[in-house]
């Protein structure tokens, strides 16, 4: 009995997803606080934010590597939050993850072949060993890993190749959704480009859906269809990729964009719109906008009440009433 896959149902939906960590006796660290998203099959949602924004926790929570505190995760229409780890096993075949650090995400004692074959072996995907080997080799091919690397070990290879192994491992089960957790942050620029191109090609060929987590706005522009900006656990702006770059509204988004050093001396500014101050604590945050202490547009109405995401133009959501008011009608 197979479930009919409704093409109109988004492949992944997050509804009021929360993850709080217990700190001390009575305190909660709001790592992920009420995140909502609807992701269509074959598209990429970029999740952007700096350290402490909760994007890494979000990625882990979607896969239930960390148990969500509250909310729903609808995978192909079915809520997976109440599932126990054992029931998650068939779902894991469809949702995989590529890790950030090519140096610690591979078991140093396993050869390239063994690492890529492990998901197949663990899930007993093939009865025939030859079939399994065929799949591993074909995935290695797809990811640009030559045959002769089969018996190599991670410590013999550079970051770029190691990351390709990570990609291959995520692909070998032919999943539908892949969480990419900063997959190129640890790589040199020229290698970054190789891996990003590979991921985009794979998405076209295999109809993959990505959740692409990164702190680098320039990277996410190329690969995402939609972008969500996170700050201290909350989504403060969400828009289609192009729109986000042409028309950023939230002061934090603007600061994030302004902060990126551009390799162009004509734009060498004497004083950039630099955001001041530091991140405030995610523990038991007060109601109100969490960016308020650092915001140049701060007004008294910004504290006291949590900000709602409002749609200011088709599919463009912002959680900042101050900037909303300033928009041209």
């Amino acid at each position, binding site marked *: 009995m197979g479930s009919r896959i409704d093409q109109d149902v988004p492949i992944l939906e997050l509804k009021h997803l929360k993850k709080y960590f217990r700190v001390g006796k009575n305190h909660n660290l709001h790592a992920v606080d009420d995140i909502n998203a609807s992701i269509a099959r074959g598209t990429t949602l970029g999740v952007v934010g*700096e*350290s402490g924004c909760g994007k890494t926790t979000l990625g882990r929570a979607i896969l239930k590597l960390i148990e969500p505190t509250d909310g729903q995760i609808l995978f192909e229409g079915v809520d997976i939050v109440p599932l126990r780890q054992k029931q998650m096993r068939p779902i894991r075949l469809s949702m995989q993850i590529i890790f950030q650090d090519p140096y610690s995400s591979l078991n140093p004692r396993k050869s390239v072949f063994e690492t890529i074959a492990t998901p197949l072996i663990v899930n007993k995907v093939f009865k025939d060993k030859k079939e399994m080997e065929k799949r591993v080799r074909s995935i290695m091919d797809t990811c640009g890993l030559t045959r002769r690397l089969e018996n190599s070990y991670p410590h013999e290879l*550079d*970051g*770029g190749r190691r990351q390709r192994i990570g990609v291959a491992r995520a692909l070998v089960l032919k999943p539908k959704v892949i969480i990419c957790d900063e997959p190129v942050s640890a790589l*040199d*620029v*020229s*290698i*970054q*480009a*190789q891996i*990003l*191109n590979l991921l*985009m090609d794979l998405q076209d060929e295999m109809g993959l859906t990505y959740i692409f987590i990164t*702190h*680098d*706005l*320039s*990277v996410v*522009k*190329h690969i995402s269809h939609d972008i969500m900006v996170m700050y201290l656990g909350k989504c403060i702006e969400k828009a289609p990729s*192009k729109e986000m*770059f042409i028309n950023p509204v939230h002061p934090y988004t603007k*600061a*994030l*964009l*302004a*902060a*990126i*050093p*551009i*390799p*162009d*001396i004509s734009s*060498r500014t004497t*004083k*950039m719109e*630099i*955001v*001041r101050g*530091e*991140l405030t604590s995610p523990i038991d945050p007060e109601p109100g906008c969490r960016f308020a202490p650092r915001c140049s547009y701060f007004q008294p109405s910004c504290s006291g009440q949590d900000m709602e995401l409002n749609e200011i133009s088709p599919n463009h959501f912002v959680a900042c009433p101050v900037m909303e008011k300033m928009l041209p009608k």
Partner: protein
Amino acid sequence: MSVELLKVENLEVIYKTTQETVQAVNKISFTLNKGETLGLVGETGAGKTTTALAIMQLLPKTGKILAGSITFDGRNLLELSDEEMRLRIRGEKIAMIFQDPMTALNPVMTVGEQIAEAIRYHSENIKEDEIQKRVDEVLEMVGIQASRKYEYPHQFSGGMKQRVVIAIALSCEPDLLIADEPTTALDVTIQAQVLAMMGELRDRLGTAMVMITHDLGVVAQICDKVAVMYAGELIEKGTLEDIYVSKDHHPYTDGLFGALPNLVKGTDRLAPIVGLMPDPSKLPVGCNFQDRCPHCMDICKAKKPEVYMNRTHMIECYLFSNNESWRRDHGKQN
């Protein structure tokens, strides 16, 4: 009037282990004037950090300076003893800051005490209250309240820690600051803050800077001149205009620009550089970039490229051998 402060000439550095000898830096030369900022650009393994450590004479045991000279303020640093380097140069005249602020600070000493230690070490007969005054000054200079000097490193965030590191480095007002990827580990908004601060301090104190980075954007924001390293060699050098405005480039530099995800241009596919940097223990005959160069010619595989100059712009590549604006530089022996 620009006064020459640092002159590195034909520097060669190797790393020698029981298993192999690796050429980390191969005959690089550059100069830096007082108050100037040089961006030393390259990817992992290019030899930038090795160059910095060589200038500071802080190479690990396996590292050896094989040849060349490093002239600072008229003196050849390679002729100085370790004691002279330690007492007179390091910290006092040339300071260095590293990438990871987490491990650069002593976790069991207060921040104020660490700055004071640096000051005390380089000043004779300085009174305690004068030291404390200087500590306060220096903290304010990097944007930290002086009252925080009694706090410990773990009480500061990453960006703040890096500011403290910069404070320690600048406390003795060195003539030259070598910054090895100082903002790579920081979030982008914090990076903007720290870079702006470094720029202001540099202007105020007149410190020369060598900014080591892989980020061409950072270089554009803060540097005056640029040197691009690849596999241990300086393959391109020039002013900001030479690197960012001129269309003439070493193919590797072109590749670096092309591989950057660009906020301004809307390209669909990025243009990576195929292949990898060569293994430093197995460098090819001829140009190091030959396997990855879209313009590789036969001569590139046979002989190391000559150096060509166009006023301030230097490129080590045969592509410019027939170009009228470029003349061959005989200064470098190949």
